């Protein structure tokens, strides 16, 4: 074939083009995204003025007066300053702020406007990071217990949604890593929250921890289902199991301690059956942990996984029982919320059972 004939054939491929409607809709999404980024960049300077204004108002007004004035000021700025100022202030707002709803709305708008999986994954990742930062900020705030409960509840709800969304946007392994991050953050938050707030939020916090566990179990299941695992993959599976077992070991120790610490106390006779249940559940859990370890030694990942699922159910159930019964600690054996690496056998009296931190 002559070169010129070949080139003529190649030029036939010039007819390959993208679909017109995709080109148009993609252009619109790009324009929207460019506009959003421009507004965010424009407001970087405005934020200092806004922060300064609010700071001076906070020092000027008593706490109880501040909130309605803050809301009115925000409303005035929204009217006078235009959307741009609101957007930037919103991006730095926390639950409880009038602009928090704007922040979440903007994140969702960006997600809808996103036109590629890679971009959506990046946005989802940023959203989870922001929720974790918000959780930390809210937990560390000086707000009243009632307000704190509501604020933490909001962030935890969003985290729960993010964990579910992560399964769609990330690989199993990435979703599992993010779930472990969230679980750690929740455990740290629990250790810092006042007892009253923890009690109000125990169901929500337990739900997020359960979702995080489920994500890790799903990641393990996907890894184990692969044929011909490499040594690297087997090591990764073992590490994941190890991390989960460490977590569950501590949880089981707490459950057992909470159960045994009340065996001889007369005053809470009505809680004795619950104590017995907790001790029994702790024993079952310990059996399952031993089974998992034995299965892992034999390289039987599938059996280990089934036992892990059963273990998660038992531990979650027992923790709920203990929290609802609000058993007091006896002989310093019940676990309270302490920092990471806390010894399960030391705790102040009167604190409800919580999952010890990793």
């Amino acid at each position, binding site marked *: 074939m002559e*070169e010129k004939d070949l080139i003529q054939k190649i*030029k036939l*491929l010039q007819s*390959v083009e*993208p679909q017109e409607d995709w080109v148009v809709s993609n*252009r619109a999404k*790009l324009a929207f995204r460019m506009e959003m980024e421009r507004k965010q960049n424009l407001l970087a300077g405005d934020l200092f003025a806004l922060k300064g204004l609010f700071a001076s108002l906070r020092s000027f007004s008593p706490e109880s007066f501040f909130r309605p004035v803050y809301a009115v000021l925000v409303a005035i700025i929204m009217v006078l300053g235009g959307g741009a100022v609101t957007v930037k202030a919103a991006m730095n707002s926390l639950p409880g702020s009038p602009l928090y709803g704007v922040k979440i709305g903007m994140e969702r708008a960006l997600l809808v406007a996103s*036109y*590629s999986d890679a971009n959506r994954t990046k946005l989802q990742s940023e959203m989870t990071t922001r929720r974790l930062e918000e959780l930390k900020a809210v937990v560390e705030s000086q707000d009243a217990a009632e307000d704190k409960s509501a604020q933490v509840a909001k962030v935890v709800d969003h985290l729960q949604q993010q964990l579910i969304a992560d399964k769609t946007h990330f690989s199993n*392994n990435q979703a599992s890593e993010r779930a472990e991050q969230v679980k750690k953050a929740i455990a740290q938050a629990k250790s810092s929250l006042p007892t009253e707030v923890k009690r109000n939020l125990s169901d929500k916090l337990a739900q997020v921890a359960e979702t995080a566990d489920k994500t890790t179990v799903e990641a393990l299941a996907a890894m184990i289902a692969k044929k011909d695992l490499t040594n690297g993959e087997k090591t990764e599976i073992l590490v994941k199991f190890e991390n989960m077992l460490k977590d569950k070991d501590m949880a089981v120790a707490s459950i057992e301690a909470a159960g045994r610490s009340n065996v001889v106390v007369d005053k809470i006779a009505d809680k004795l059956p619950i104590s017995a249940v907790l001790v029994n559940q702790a024993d079952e859990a310990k059996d399952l942990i031993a089974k998992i370890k034995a299965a892992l030694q034999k390289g039987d990942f599938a059996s280990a996984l089934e036992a892990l699922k059963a273990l998660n159910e038992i531990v979650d159930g027992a923790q709920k029982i203990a929290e609802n019964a609000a058993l007091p600690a006896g002989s310093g054996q019940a676990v309270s919320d302490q920092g990471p690496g806390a010894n399960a056998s030391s705790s102040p009296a009167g604190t409800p059972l919580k999952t010890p931190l990793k």
Partner: protein
Amino acid sequence: MPAIDERQFLSLYDQYVGKIYRYIFFRVGSEEQAQDLTSEVFLKSWQYVQQKGDKAGKELANPRAFFYQITRNMIADFYRQKDRTPLSLEEIADKIIADKSEGIAEKTAGVNLEMEAVKKALAKLKGDYQEVIIWRYLDELDIKEIASILEKTEGAVRVLLSRALNDLKDALK
């Protein structure tokens, strides 16, 4: 001060979206992925230009080369992503034919067999051979511009092109 405003950038989009899409399509073999990656190219390019501000003059002096460089990096990242197995060239060739049967976008209604054969043959070539053929004969870039994108000498590009055409000729037999 940015070197280019939104309207100017969007007009660059209008000018180059077809070429970038086509280049990616022949490199990854899927309409959907070509659309996603094309979108990413323009967004990343915009963000890059914004970051550089008035120092983006060099890139904007030759926007086509700038977009192609970003595109090449993005395709490399696409194949490097976790859990993603690069398609073999044969698979890409088959995907292009299969996608066509599902109704991929072609301007001309009846794509003839000859075009299908060239597509399949092109998909069998190495990545850098595909690139030079696409740029030289579909996008009609001159040798100098291709050399600038690939950061090679013009002589090296001529050799690459010659080898690419030979391989394509063999693949078409």
